[in-house]
């Protein structure tokens, strides 16, 4: 999750606010979030009942912005992620949802990672 938050600090268009939802984890999520207070306007939310939709809703309910972007804790955003995400919303008031590309990248040498990289990545050139 640290990598995810660090990638938000590096955004070319910084997020106005960041909400981290801790979905009943038993690690040090809160401490990690507190460590980012100096760099991001970050809020920690604890959701005791497990479940992805539940966690996402808890996050939405803690936000105040007009556009709400989601990223998972095991993902890392490109520097221009939010910049590109925002443009379609600004350009067209009828746009209700914008999706971005999720690619898989290698952190080990496992055959299953290779399998995912082969099968799930799109035609765009891998950046790693």
């Amino acid at each position, binding site marked *: 999750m640290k990598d995810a938050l660090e990638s938000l600090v590096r955004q070319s268009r910084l997020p106005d606010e960041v909400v981290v939802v801790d979905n009943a984890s038993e690690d040090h999520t809160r401490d990690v979030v507190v460590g980012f207070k100096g760099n991001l306007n970050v809020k920690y939310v604890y959701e005791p009942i497990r479940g992805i939709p539940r966690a996402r809703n808890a996050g*939405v309910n803690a936000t105040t912005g007009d*556009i709400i972007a*989601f990223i998972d804790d095991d993902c890392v955003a490109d520097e221009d*992620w939010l910049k590109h995400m925002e443009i379609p919303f600004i350009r067209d008031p009828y746009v209700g*949802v914008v*999706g971005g*590309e999720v690619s898989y990248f290698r952190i080990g040498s496992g055959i299953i990672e*290779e399998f995912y990289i082969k099968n799930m990545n*799109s035609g765009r050139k891998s950046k790693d």
Partner: protein
Amino acid sequence: MIIQVLCNLFEEGYQRRERDSSISPFFAGANVAFRRQALDQIGRYDESCASGEDQDMWLRITEARWEAYFEPKAAVRHKNRLTVRSLIRQWFRYGYHHPYVTMKHGSRGVRVYRRSSTKQKGAIYDCLLTARFPFDATLFLTSFLLMHAFFALAVLFAALTLGIPAIVMGILALVLAVRYFRSDIDMRHPLQAFSFVFLRYIANLALLLGGLLGGMRLGMLYVSPTFDYKA
């Protein structure tokens, strides 16, 4: 009966306004943004979804006539820490929870296929048949399913000592198996190719079994959309 051509639509642009309405992709929850106004209109994520919540959101937001825009430049990278066990569990979960989304949305739910990004942009994937019978069944007829059906028939005919039909069915099963596995076969890396064949097979099997059991829980027959790749 709906004939569904699975397309990989994911080139930048509007997904609803400019596309064939019979084809619905969806955005992965790991990289999606909503306009608050749209969320306030359609409501929040469905907390009854243990998986398939992204498809559900897609169906609701497009139903409410909001535009959906795909911007590939808004990129995130996903780190995988996967084992064979987690792969099987993940695909079983997908299968198990998808019948709920299908049941909730009817034929629109059927059209949402779980693949959001694939390796070839613009490639047209295999034609699938989707049928909804009066007794609420959803069947994705894929080459994965067909090769097993032909194989079962070949065994059946052989057991009945019907030589010619057994051979014909056997050949059909073999042709489909070759077609199914072809994209994984790379002779420069035989061990890797074998592993890919194995992984895709068990992932599909887990998806199929998950779908059958998840459908049964809801009192419906659900045969999952197992996946093929064009070589």
